[in-house]
């Protein structure tokens, strides 16, 4: 068990190291010298120049050797000093991101958890029930093949524009200012619903199919044959098969987190939902490089944390990893 966790942690630390390095390298060594571009853009606003130059010297320090620039960047990262947003001047990047995180988590976490549970249940139920299987399967594949943004656009068009049941943009109504009241919470939920459903549906299709395929493999396993030979009822067999099929689905969740994060980015863009994804896209459109860097860093951190949580969940569910029988999943 310790070995398993240690192995995983090593990989995550390596990944983090690599990601921060990429984050540092790309703006510096890309053609067109983006840093220069950014500085000259910032120069258009008189009050920005001083702030930008200050950060520039601290974080980039182009007058010191490259390795020291790199170390300085790490120092800045650990101090949470990610620079100042040009596009939302003079807000520090870290604060801009902190404000966006709750929205992203609000749609992502429930969508991931609920779609995983519902998809698994449904896929297991459909497996080897011919009629259901043959309808669910194409539908499920169609759903997971759907680009996240397209499903979002369709939902917004149908339920937002067509039926007028839900708003199609924003995290809360334009006329409101955030405060703690039932009215505001309901308004938040009202705006939250469509982006959530949009993410939920695409993922649901994927989990349902994954589970269906896993169960079919499990039902062919030797231990199932043996149970059948011993006259075990279907119920017990399905219970065993489900339990075993869930394990690769957990691994699958870990593998999917990156894709899901990408799905959140475009879904937020479709609904103008004020999370990290929308922020990132806006930063890209406005060439706000510090903000881009910050968003990338936080997406990486989020993905790594999510992976860690999934690993721990796996550890709890699979006795083999707990007893150190299996090196990796």
């Amino acid at each position, binding site marked *: 068990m310790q070995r398993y966790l240690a192995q995983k942690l090593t990989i995550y630390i390596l990944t983090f190291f690599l990601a921060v390095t990429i984050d540092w390298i790309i703006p510096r060594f890309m053609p067109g010298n983006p840093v220069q571009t950014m500085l000259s853009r910032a120069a258009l606003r008189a009050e920005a120049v001083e702030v930008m130059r200050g950060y520039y010297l601290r974080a980039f320090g182009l007058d010191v050797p490259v390795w020291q620039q790199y170390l300085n960047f790490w120092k800045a990262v650990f101090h949470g000093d990610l620079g100042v947003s040009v596009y939302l001047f003079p807000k520090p990047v870290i604060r801009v991101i902190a404000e966006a995180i709750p929205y992203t988590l609000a749609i992502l976490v429930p969508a991931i958890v609920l779609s995983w549970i519902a998809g698994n249940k449904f896929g297991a139920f459909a497996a080897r029930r011919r009629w259901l299987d043959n309808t669910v399967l194409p539908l499920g594949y169609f759903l997971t093949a759907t680009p996240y943004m397209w499903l979002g656009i369709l939902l917004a068009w149908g339920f937002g524009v067509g039926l007028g049941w839900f708003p199609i943009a924003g995290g809360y109504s334009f006329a409101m200012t955030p405060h703690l009241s039932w009215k505001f919470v309901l308004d938040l939920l009202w705006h939250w619903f469509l982006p959530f459903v949009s993410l939920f549906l695409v993922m649901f299709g994927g989990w349902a199919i994954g589970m269906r395929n896993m169960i079919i493999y499990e039902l062919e396993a*030797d231990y199932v*044959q*043996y*149970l059948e*030979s*011993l*006259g*075990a009822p279907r119920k017990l067999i399905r219970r065993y098969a489900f339990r075993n099929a869930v394990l690769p689905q957990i691994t699958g969740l870990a593998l999917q987190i990156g894709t899901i994060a990408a799905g959140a980015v475009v879904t937020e863009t479709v609904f103008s939902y004020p999370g990290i994804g929308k922020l990132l896209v806006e930063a890209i459109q406005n060439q706000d490089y510090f903000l881009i860097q910050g968003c990338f860093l936080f997406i990486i951190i989020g993905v790594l944390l999510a992976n860690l949580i999934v690993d721990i969940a796996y550890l709890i569910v699979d*006795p*083999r990893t707990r007893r150190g029988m299996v090196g990796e999943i």
Partner: protein
Amino acid sequence: MPLLEVQDLRVYYQTIRGDVKALDGASFSLAEGEIMGLAGESGCGKSTLGRSLVLLKPPMKYVEGRVTLEDFSLPIWDREKMNAFRFSKISLIPQYAMNALNPTRKVKKIFTDILATKGIKGSQVLPELRRRLEMVELPLDVLNMYPIELSGGMKQRVVMVLSTFLNPSLLIADEITSALDVSTQRAVVKMLVDFRDRRVVRAMIVITHDISLLYQIADSILVMYAGKLVEKGTTEEILRAPKHPYTRFLIASLPDIGVRYGERKLEGVPGCPPLLLQPPRGCRFRERCPHAFEKCLEEPPFVAIGPSGRQVACWQALEEHA
């Protein structure tokens, strides 16, 4: 009255090219306390016979035949109804015993789960379980372990205990020694005999490639070829004085103990077994048989010769006897 009576059992495999007649009419019986070896090359239908008595499912297809165990007529064609007889009356130690246990459940949990389906509480049978584990020389700790923590031989013995736990009347052991090393094989064989001697099971069919193994364990041997029964007799009779030319080849090509001949082609027998999609008329061994004559174009009956209950399906042997 015999313990098990199988009459004219036919089980085919469904394939895209039509039915493969893997078991084409088998009639035999098993006496109380008998350990019968079932031998033959791979693909001869011996596993089909064993499996169809316990779990007959697609692509296997029941065609006809009756199976009577004790006083019950077994509904082997009905997957659901057979559940009442499986485990309690007729049980199986499968070929794949190494993988037969759910890897993510503790052994104890596997026992209690499966016993619960027969309405038996796990806690009630713990003393008996302890006794049975002792019988196969397993420590009690295995109950708290996961199958992957057990060695191959240990898993096999756990399966043996589980399969026989309800004292089934008939136990079918399907190629259970093929994955074991020689010394473990010997121990497993001894345990099987033990099961019979202690009346855990009332009769046993041991399916194997390995005739030398049958020499150590079986009271009688039934030889199959290309979906047909060709000869049955006591172990002594079959090994010392085989009547059917195929049995003779089988015994003659018997290699040293522990080597499985089924994986090689039979030495000295030209040709290979006929395709069972459309088996030839008459004796199925005809084309490979050095003694074949015109009568062999007709199918030989599987009949008793002599008072000992010895049976053979060969025109030549019948004529010699007559």
